[in-house]
């Protein structure tokens, strides 16, 4: 681990030490693995330590492995010039966690996007509704059991049969 990251790792271990928080390191980037319920408290602690920008909020679907979802936060501190990651693992049945909007107001749209794409609910969010898909869309597209929804490519051997099925508007 490079020097600044090692200092940060030490500081984070003593900040969170003993509270079921695991520190992971991959390719020089630090990630804290926290329990879903502890996400808001962890964010508040980190904000007090200078991590004032929520750079990214995303989710990953590990289907069919359990725990199914992981919500990943990336926080940035301007004065230390460092990124730190926060990860919370969720199962299928318990796919909700507290919203970090009170701490970082810009999480508003990011959490809406995660809800839209994965179906993970955020408790305490001011306005949780679909943002990228049409409002009446059913299903959560980025889940692994949601189909890609592609159409078959029309080559010359199957041209006619696809042509019969294909919808054109001629009026």
């Amino acid at each position, binding site marked *: 681990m490079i020097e600044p990251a090692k200092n940060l790792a030490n500081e984070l271990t003593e900040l969170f030490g003993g509270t079921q928080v695991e520190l992971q390191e991959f390719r020089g980037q630090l990630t804290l693995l926290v329990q879903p319920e502890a996400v808001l408290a962890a964010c508040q602690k980190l904000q007090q330590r200078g991590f004032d920008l929520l750079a990214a909020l995303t989710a990953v679907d590990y289907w069919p492995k359990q725990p199914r979802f992981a919500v990943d936060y990336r926080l940035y501190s301007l004065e230390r010039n460092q990124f730190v990651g926060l990860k919370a693992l969720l199962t299928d049945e318990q796919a909700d966690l507290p919203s970090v909007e009170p701490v970082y107001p810009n999480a508003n749209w990011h959490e809406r996007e995660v809800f839209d794409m994965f179906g993970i609910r955020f408790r305490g969010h001011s306005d949780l509704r679909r943002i990228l*898909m*049409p409002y009446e869309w059913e299903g959560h*597209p980025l889940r692994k059991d949601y189909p890609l*929804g592609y*159409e078959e490519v029309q080559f010359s051997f199957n041209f006619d049969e696809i042509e019969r099925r294909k919808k054109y*508007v001629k009026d």
Partner: protein
Amino acid sequence: MGIEQKLGNLGAVTTTLEKAVNWSRTRAMWPLLSGLACCAIEMMATQAADYDLSRFGMELMRASPRQSDLLIVAGRVSRKMAPVLRRLYDQMPEPKWVIAMGDCCSCGGVFNNYAIVPGVDEVMPVDVYIAGCPPRPEGLIHGILTLHNKVMGEKSLRVEA
């Protein structure tokens, strides 16, 4: 134009008048400002100084569909946007033409998934398709000239017997 109902089929007069009508339609076709994605940037570049669209009569892009007669669908059409585009098309008065500019609105393009309508011809009838991702400004001009040729050949005044 209500003149064609009154004239009926008058032989040579109708065909000459038809040619004149078609010619004038091609010379001042006003496009609707409906740039959706990347192809819109190339459409703007075609409108700008280097490849000038105003030499084809398209000096300005009208913002209102009621005042335009050409809908250049430039860019990818998503499922949320498709009803909006159809509404724009319905709001345009006759005669109107549609150019599908780029791969995404001709056939879905690079994207083959849940979110993109594979070809804007599922939503509205298209007159000219232009290939390219995005098509070069010369490609768009070629498409417009193809549309002009198509319009010149239209039977706009002949009454269905």
